[in-house]
């Protein structure tokens, strides 16, 4: 170990669903102020991996450590209590509710008015606006509904909400999967902003093009097993892509698509 303790560490994590080994002996370490990319093709075990880290499904074998201390998550609430927040693909946002109502859902600040405890809407609006600005999303009107935001902007709401409520590790489930180029770039900026605030970001994706520009460490899964784990200096974009395809060059996989070379 090169540092006192990782924010979040998984050692030899395994998870079975019936007789299916969804995850076998996978280890990972997430440091603060770093982006750890978890890559893998469909069915590689990324979802299972997220579910174990976020407390949705506890692992069958192996151990989880937070700040070097072993923990066991029985629920997503347990994980959150340890500062580990997960933004699943649906982001847990309500399209018909305003940005600030979404931002504070489940943890709304209140103020006393005589016998009543009322929502402190002014604080909600102000905090929501400044917190979103911190990660690079300028919202003039926190009363607009989340349904009016783009997919990338919704990621920003989920990320800044998690950070504001004390998340130190941020697990993002395919945050760029359904987005265009510009929005993907915007989401990568949000991730960079979260990293610069000291959060350990776990960026789960199947796209090495999205992971490479921002990742500090790359963990590649294949059929539930760890294919390899590299720091940024140890691997090139091409090698990462190749590792994801299970050692086969992407070139080889796509060769049959090309027309045969002219003869002689």
């Amino acid at each position, binding site marked *: 170990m090169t540092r006192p303790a990782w924010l979040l560490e998984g050692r030899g994590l395994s998870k079975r669903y019936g007789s299916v080994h969804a995850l076998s002996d996978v280890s990972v370490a997430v440091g603060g102020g770093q982006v750890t990319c978890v890559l893998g093709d469909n069915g590689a075990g990324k979802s299972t991996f997220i579910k174990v880290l976020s407390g949705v499904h506890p692992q069958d074998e192996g151990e989880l450590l937070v700040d070097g201390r072993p923990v066991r998550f029985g629920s997503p609430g347990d994980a959150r209590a340890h500062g580990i927040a997960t933004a699943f693909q649906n982001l847990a946002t*309500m399209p018909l509710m305003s940005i600030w109502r979404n931002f504070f*859902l*489940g943890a709304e600040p209140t103020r006393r008015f005589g016998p009543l405890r009322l*929502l402190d809407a002014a604080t909600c609006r102000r905090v929501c606006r400044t917190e979103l600005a911190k990660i*690079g999303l*300028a*919202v003039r009107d926190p*009363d607009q509904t989340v349904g009016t935001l783009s997919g990338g902007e919704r990621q920003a709401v989920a990320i800044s909400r998690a950070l504001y409520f004390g998340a130190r590790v941020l697990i993002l489930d395919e945050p760029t999967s359904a987005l265009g180029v510009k929005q993907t770039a915007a989401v990568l900026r949000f991730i*960079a902003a979260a990293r610069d605030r000291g959060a350990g970001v776990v960026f789960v994706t199947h796209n090495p093009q999205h992971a490479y*520009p921002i990742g500090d460490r790359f963990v590649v899964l294949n059929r539930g097993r760890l294919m390899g784990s590299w720091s940024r200096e140890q691997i090139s974009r091409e090698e990462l892509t190749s590792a994801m395809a299970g050692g086969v060059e992407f070139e080889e996989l796509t060769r049959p698509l090309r027309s045969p070379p002219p003869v002689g």
Partner: protein
Amino acid sequence: MNGNVALRPKPAAPPGPAEQRPHRPGPMIRLMRHPELGALAAVIVIGAFFSVSTVRFASPGGVANWTDVASTIGIVSVAVALLMIAGEFDLSAGVMVGSAGLLVGILSTRLGVNLWVAVAAALGFAAAIGWLNGFVVVRTGLPSFIVTLATFFTLQGVNLGVTKLITDNVRVDGLRTVAGYEQVHAVFGGTFSTWDFRVSVLWWIVITVVAALLLKRTRAGNWIFAVGGDPAAARMMAVPVNRVKIGLFMATSMTAALVGIMVAARLGSVTATQGVGNEFMYIVCAVVGGTLLSGGYGSPVGASLGAVIVGMAFIGIQFSGWNTDWRFLFLGVILLLAVLVNNLVRRAVR
């Protein structure tokens, strides 16, 4: 993302060129965000129409007439709107009006129970039925439409069966001779001012204000929106989804019981079919007031405005000397128009 390393090194990622929203929405858009806007427009148009076409409609006595109708519908509609925003229906709310009234009548006139105790018992009974509705819905995951339809038929059967068994009739009367009737009548069924406004109007206004405050200005209100918007996501954000739903089923049943008590206190008698058919009236008021059938969006103030429309229509048609059967045609048209207008407005706001 063409292989550049613009995101590195770390200082090179300022929270900078942010996604600017095009502009702050104008006052028109901000006004149109209120779900109750369409209902308010309809109230103004319908009110103006009957004020011009009949003499009595806009007089204080006339207003007392239609606010009376609006209040007994509106008290329940407000709770139904909250329940619908949380994504559920209650088809047993109409028949609960009769059940509560009958319970007050039978307990006080036949079993000699103190009238105030009978009133409390009716509210307690409604709370229990509401809890049961909610419990079955959250436990089984069945649509509340079906669960509360079952409650509806069950209560309707009990209302008729028990009433006939006890009175050999389909009504319970004699409440006026029970000790304490004067007080109960004053609180739940009386009138005030020289134009005889019903006291139920005051109840209605208070309940509307409380519901609006609850929805917009409390944590529970935020949870109601979220529960109707996406229950699974709400759970993930630590919202007590089941408690919110069960609480709203109880509130709906209890407002229906309150109206049942009001009817009993006003007339001194209750018929076994009292309230049946009103369940859809409450839903109509909520929907006319901008509440979405699919949940997650709506307004208790809108539901009250919907009730105002119903009250105005019923009394306006009566004052106009038309056959009162036409009022349902009127309601149908208003419902369709309101839903169309609300739909258009919501799209424009987006």
